């Protein structure tokens, strides 16, 4: 029997609070810059001002001026642009490839927010007979993968997973199964979220947003004074294929996917101990056939919430056991970008790839006051380093958790990647 193919990432496309493209993202996390900004209450339909990681100066017309693209939800525009960037980065021309061999796998926690609110408001205010057909087709959960499949001619399969922040990791896991079974040859992995007044208002109501318990409005993962998360938005697309496929195309992979794990806490917030993340990391490491001692860097899911940062710290310490060494470094780029759920999960992967390829570790900015419950080897300033193996974590309040183990491919720094 033929061995299962090793999987690699050959293209990365990013739309983040640092801007459009992997360049501004890599530069931002390498310098330890904050991409969190004050939102204009009028523009965002907010009752009061707040900070968030919005995509700055987003001008979709620069990508495509057609009215059908411009009326799409912001999250779908992010996703299409991220996919286009990832395909270009992977030197993958959809027009010169059989669409039957390409699948699109998307993870979204909240998905389309603004237009969905508009769609249902019309139904509730005026009656179902005035529902907008156009809004219906652009707000169903699979609208984004359908838009990408239509635009690029991908006919393999189109899957949308909505299962919390790790949705995009679960999408990657499903894609890995399809790729290893040779059901498809290429997978587009997508994680995307859009900011909206509804999500901002809801998370404030749920006491999840900083400053939940007073103090400064700040994303400061693992810090003793952390008081909730800062919301964010964006999209990340990655092109994943078998190593041989990339080789046959003459493309140098950005990174290798050694393992993906997924698990659930299966307990409420009160008794939460990070069992889901622990299980996910253990599964990913087992799939990678490497011990934890080989891991150089962890892109944490820490989002500045009291509980999640604590349970992630505990989960990492348990997986490390007695082996937790000073050089197993941990940081959360959500300190700079905020929490964008499924997009944020893949931003963590993008951070690992950038760190491995460019030789640095991104910091957890705003960390000043150590919390004994979050004791880890935190990266507090940008550091030059040579990480070879990294883990990206993702977990959300509901207990759903996932982890991805990545490794470098000893290749030249990213060229032609925006």
């Amino acid at each position, binding site marked *: 029997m033929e061995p299962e193919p090793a999987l690699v990432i050959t293209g990365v496309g990013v739309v983040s609070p640092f801007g459009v493209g992997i360049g501004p993202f890599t530069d931002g996390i390498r310098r330890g810059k904050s991409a969190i900004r004050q939102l204009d209450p009028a523009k965002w339909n907010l009752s009061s001002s707040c900070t968030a990681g919005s995509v700055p100066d987003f001008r979709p017309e620069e990508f495509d001026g057609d*009215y059908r693209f411009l009326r799409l939800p912001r999250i779908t525009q992010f996703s299409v642009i991220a996919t286009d960037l990832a395909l270009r980065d992977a030197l993958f021309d959809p027009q010169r490839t059989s669409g039957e061999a390409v699948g699109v796998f998307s993870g979204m926690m909240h998905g389309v927010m603004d237009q969905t609110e508009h769609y249902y408001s019309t139904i509730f205010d005026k009656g179902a007979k005035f529902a907008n*057909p*156009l809004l219906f087709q652009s707000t169903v959960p699979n609208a984004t993968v359908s838009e990408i499949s239509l635009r690029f001619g991908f006919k393999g399969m189109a899957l949308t997973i909505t299962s919390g922040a790790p949705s995009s990791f679960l999408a990657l896991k499903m894609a890995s199964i399809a790729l290893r079974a040779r059901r498809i040859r290429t997978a587009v992995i997508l994680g995307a979220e859009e900011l909206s007044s509804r999500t901002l208002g809801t998370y404030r109501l749920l006491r999840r947003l900083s400053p939940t318990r007073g103090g400064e409005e700040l994303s400061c993962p693992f810090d003793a004074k952390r008081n909730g998360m800062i919301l964010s938005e964006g999209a990340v697309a990655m092109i994943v294929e078998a190593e041989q496929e990339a080789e046959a195309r003459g493309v140098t992979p950005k990174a290798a996917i050694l393992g993906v794990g997924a698990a659930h806490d299966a307990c409420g917030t009160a008794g939460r101990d990070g069992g889901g993340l622990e299980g996910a990391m253990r599964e990913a490491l087992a799939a990678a056939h490497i011990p934890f001692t080989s891991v150089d860097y962890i892109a944490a899911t820490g989002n500045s919430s009291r509980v999640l940062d604590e349970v992630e710290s505990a989960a990492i310490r348990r997986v490390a056991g007695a082996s937790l060494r000073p050089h197993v470094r941990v940081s959360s780029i959500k300190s700079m970008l905020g929490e964008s759920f499924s997009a944020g999960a893949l931003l963590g992967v993008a951070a690992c790839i950038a760190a491995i390829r460019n030789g640095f570790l991104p910091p957890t900015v705003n960390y000043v006051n150590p919390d004994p419950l979050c004791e880890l080897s935190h990266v507090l300033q940008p550091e030059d380093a040579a990480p070879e193996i990294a883990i990206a974590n993702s977990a959300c309040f509901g207990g759903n958790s996932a982890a991805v183990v990545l490794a470098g491919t000893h290749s030249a720094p990213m060229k032609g990647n925006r």
Partner: protein
Amino acid sequence: MTREEVATAIRNLIVERLHLRISPNAINDDQPLFGEGLGLDSVEALEIVVALEERFGIVVKDTEDVKDFFYSVDTLTTYVLGAVGHAGQRSVGHVGN
């Protein structure tokens, strides 16, 4: 409402509801809405149906001959005027927003 007023309203609602990036005046009355004309698709046609019903307080019936009325702004105007007359409304007001 005169025929021209109805035609103007239809041009406006097509541009607004479909987010077209053209001036309503750029749509000629006899320009085909589908195919080689404006190039609208089937879901956009349904969006226009909902908009017409909301704007003119009519019911667009799902019959075979209705398709012919969706050829252009001119034919749609004829349809709306007929439907309004059929509904026996005293006036065609702006329903909803």
